[in-house]
């Protein structure tokens, strides 16, 4: 396995999807959690090169169990170009309040948590 030659295209940082990208926590501009990176969407450039255009959000918990995809329109995604760093988590340059993929969280906040007295207090 190790005697195979090194692949020539190495000008840049080599990243494996499963190893460095998928299922990592996506953070917003202030390191607040958004969601997990569930999958990647690729497109071919004019010269035919495949490259990542969007990160599809979602973890196993809410994933489809039978391999079916949610229709593209309703898929929660973030554009690749807002990613600022790939470390133990994926850092981005977006404010989580602008991420519409968090509508479920907002539903729980507005319809359940805020309704219970003390829902807004700061436990400190």
């Amino acid at each position: 396995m190790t005697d195979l030659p090194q692949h020539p295209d190495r000008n840049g940082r080599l990243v494996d999807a499963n190893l460095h990208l998928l299922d990592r926590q996506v953070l917003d501009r202030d390191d607040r959690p958004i969601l997990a990176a569930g999958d990647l969407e690729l497109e071919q450039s004019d010269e035919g090169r495949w490259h990542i255009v969007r990160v599809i959000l979602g973890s196993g918990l809410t994933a489809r169990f039978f391999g079916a995809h949610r229709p593209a329109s309703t898929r929660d995604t973030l554009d690749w170009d807002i990613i600022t760093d790939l470390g133990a988590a994926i850092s981005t340059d977006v404010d989580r309040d602008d991420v519409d993929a968090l509508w479920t969280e907002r539903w729980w906040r507005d319809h359940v948590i805020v309704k219970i007295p003390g829902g807004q207090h700061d436990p400190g």
Partner: protein
Amino acid sequence: MILGDILSRPVECGGERIGVVVDARFVLRDADRPGRAPADLVGLLVGQHTGMAFLGYERSSVARPHLLNRWLAYRQRDCFLVDIDDVAHLGEVVELRADFDRWSPMLPE
């Protein structure tokens, strides 16, 4: 294309089964701020098992603990990287061109 659609897919060349797609390797042209430049697909990593492949031991310099590392490396002993240009068709089955090259799966440190 959704990457998830080709991960874990069987890989064949001329009708003969080679293995399964274990991972996909990209090269980030701008290492400091990945988003600023495209992340190009270099190729696919083909191995025998998808189960434990995620631990990524076999492809990085993480050498410890020794015993565990040897077992995981054993499971992936015939894993290799194939260039995306050597891939003839991406679909239910990933078909490779007849004269595809096998590159090392190891990640440079």
